[in-house]
């Protein structure tokens, strides 16, 4: 039952073949069984989830019309606040904090009858590409427990790959939905900036952060996208327009005549051979499906990574200033003699991990007087150049494609104290965040050299999220046919390991 797709589970609940309570209980049991090894969850809200599930069952019994994912369990990245449920962002500084309000995404999920199982592990404040930066220990990749599940949303993607949840919410600032999806063989979508409300998403980098759906299939992601997307009067940067028709697009399974651009700068040197091999095969699959393949150049993408590592730390240095021991969260060193300032300093020293401190200090530097123009100011200009590159590319093609991540999942600890090497994981995903448009990662096979999942990234213009689903849905169908079933069937953990 837990290996089904979310849409199948929803249909079973709606048809009365299974209660949401039983479905939820099955997932809670799975979590109890495997999460000790995977560590996808930081908090499991069994009671809350079962209560929500029973409410859906009651509504169904009364004959109320259920939303398309009603009764289906979901794993929520711990960066999203849920009223009364611990929210830590993977940080010690928020240990024990129970927010007094719901994120807009959470409100929408609750209204849709989606059952929230608990909060998933992540790199502290979403800073990282491996989930090793969580203050609560790393998450393990269900495909190989010695490897990372990607990051920052490693917990969400791992929960899908371990069949602990059929749906998850992630957030993507530089690739935190797409890269974990790639290395766990799942689907992840970064919607257009402003397409999903950020209200209640604990900010890392406000102008880059975007919440989005994670699932095991393109259609499931689309169904979730439709629920969480749309305008919000609590987020000024939310787009006041209907959600693009993503579900219909996911069902089209037809890319005939679409112009698909291969970004010359996202590939080649620095990319693992097996990743490139699977990517190139995917290009041929698309050509075979009748798409027109065009090579395009985005010359400024090489400046995306440096720009990102100025903008994101700068914004985070300001966003994370509120964690000061005064109103919520951790307080260290309050001995009645120390001043508020000293207690702030000690709390932030004790409560933040090394990567967070590194980025706060870097961002403080980039914004300080005398350096602003050279660093933050220049990075904002690079942003303009990258937008221009995208505009030029989308004048020629409908979508762009690239590998999602240069490598498959690496070993836990392998890049732990080499920030620059770690930052390279996001080289293909970051340009999208800088420009604010949308992208998806779908599995495109296993790398021959290590047998680990490879992700393919599809990029579309702002507010054309439906194109991601059209291409993703068509490719997924073609792959499943070629593989004789979803990629997840090939996961070794399904027979040994986690399973």
């Amino acid at each position: 039952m837990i290996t089904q797709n979310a849409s199948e589970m929803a249909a079973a609940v709606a048809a009365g073949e299974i209660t949401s309570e039983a479905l939820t209980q099955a997932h809670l049991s799975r979590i109890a069984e495997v999460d000790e090894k995977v560590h996808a969850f930081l908090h499991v809200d069994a009671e809350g989830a079962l209560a929500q599930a029973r409410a859906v069952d009651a509504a169904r019994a009364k004959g109320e019309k259920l939303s398309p994912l009603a009764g289906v369990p979901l794993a929520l990245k711990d960066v999203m606040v849920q009223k009364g449920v611990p929210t830590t962002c993977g940080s010690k500084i928020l240990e024990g904090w129970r927010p007094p309000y719901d994120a807009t995404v959470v409100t929408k999920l609750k209204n849709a009858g989606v059952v929230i199982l608990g909060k998933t592990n992540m790199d502290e404040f979403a800073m990282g590409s491996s989930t090793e930066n969580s203050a609560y220990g790393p998450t393990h990749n269900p495909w190989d427990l010695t490897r990372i599940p990607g990051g920052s949303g490693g917990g969400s993607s791992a929960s899908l790959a371990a069949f602990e949840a059929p749906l998850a919410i992630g957030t993507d600032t530089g690739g935190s939905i797409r890269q974990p999806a790639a290395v766990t063989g799942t689907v992840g979508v970064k919607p257009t900036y402003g397409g999903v409300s950020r209200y209640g998403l604990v900010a890392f980098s406000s102008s880059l952060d975007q919440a989005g759906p994670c699932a095991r299939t393109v259609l499931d992601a689309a169904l979730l996208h439709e629920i969480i997307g749309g305008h919000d009067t609590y987020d000024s940067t939310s787009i006041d327009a209907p959600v693009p028709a993503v579900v219909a697009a996911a069902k089209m399974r037809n890319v005939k005549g679409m112009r698909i651009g291969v970004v010359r700068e996202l590939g080649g040197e620095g990319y693992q051979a097996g990743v490139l091999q699977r990517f190139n095969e995917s290009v041929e699959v698309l050509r075979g499906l009748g798409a027109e393949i065009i090579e395009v150049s985005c010359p400024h993408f090489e400046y995306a990574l440096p720009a990102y590592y100025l903008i994101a730390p700068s914004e985070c240095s300001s966003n994370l200033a509120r964690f000061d021991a005064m109103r919520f969260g951790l307080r260290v060193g309050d001995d009645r003699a120390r001043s508020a300032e000293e207690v702030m300093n000690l709390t932030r020293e004790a409560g933040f991990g090394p990567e967070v401190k590194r980025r706060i200090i870097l961002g403080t530097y980039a914004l300080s007087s005398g350096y602003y123009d050279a660093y933050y100011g220049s990075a904002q200009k690079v942003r303009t150049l990258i937008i221009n590159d995208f505009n030029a590319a989308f004048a020629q093609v409908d979508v762009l494609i690239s590998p999602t991540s240069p490598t498959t999942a690496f070993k836990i600890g392998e890049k732990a104290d080499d920030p620059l090497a770690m930052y390279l994981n996001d080289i293909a995903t970051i340009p999208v965040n800088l420009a604010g448009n949308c992208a998806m990662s779908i599995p495109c096979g296993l790398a021959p050299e290590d047998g680990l999942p490879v992700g393919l990234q599809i990029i579309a213009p702002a507010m054309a999220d439906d194109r991601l689903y059209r291409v993703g849905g068509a490719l997924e169908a073609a792959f499943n046919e070629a593989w004789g079933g979803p990629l997840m069937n090939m996961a070794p953990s399904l027979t040994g390991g986690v399973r």
Partner: protein
Amino acid sequence: MISRDDVAHLAQLARIELEASEIDHLAGQLEVILGAVARVQEVAGADVAPTSHPLPLKNVFRPDVIRPSLTPEEALSGAPASEEQRFRVPQILGEE
């Protein structure tokens, strides 16, 4: 390029009581990172306009209407300390 003293000053601005070993470690790392990110200056010409918001939105306002507040209990629920319906914090050193 970036000295130990610079890092100590930044840490003070950012209100983090870094340990000496952390300052040393960070100074070295920041040097490397800044060297890498400084590349943005290569293309950031005077003719390029900066982008602060990824979308061209403007004039997003809400009407001047009261929305419900939290209850004081909710507001103070996460406070490390509270007293008299207020957040209790250590002594504030500053101006009078």
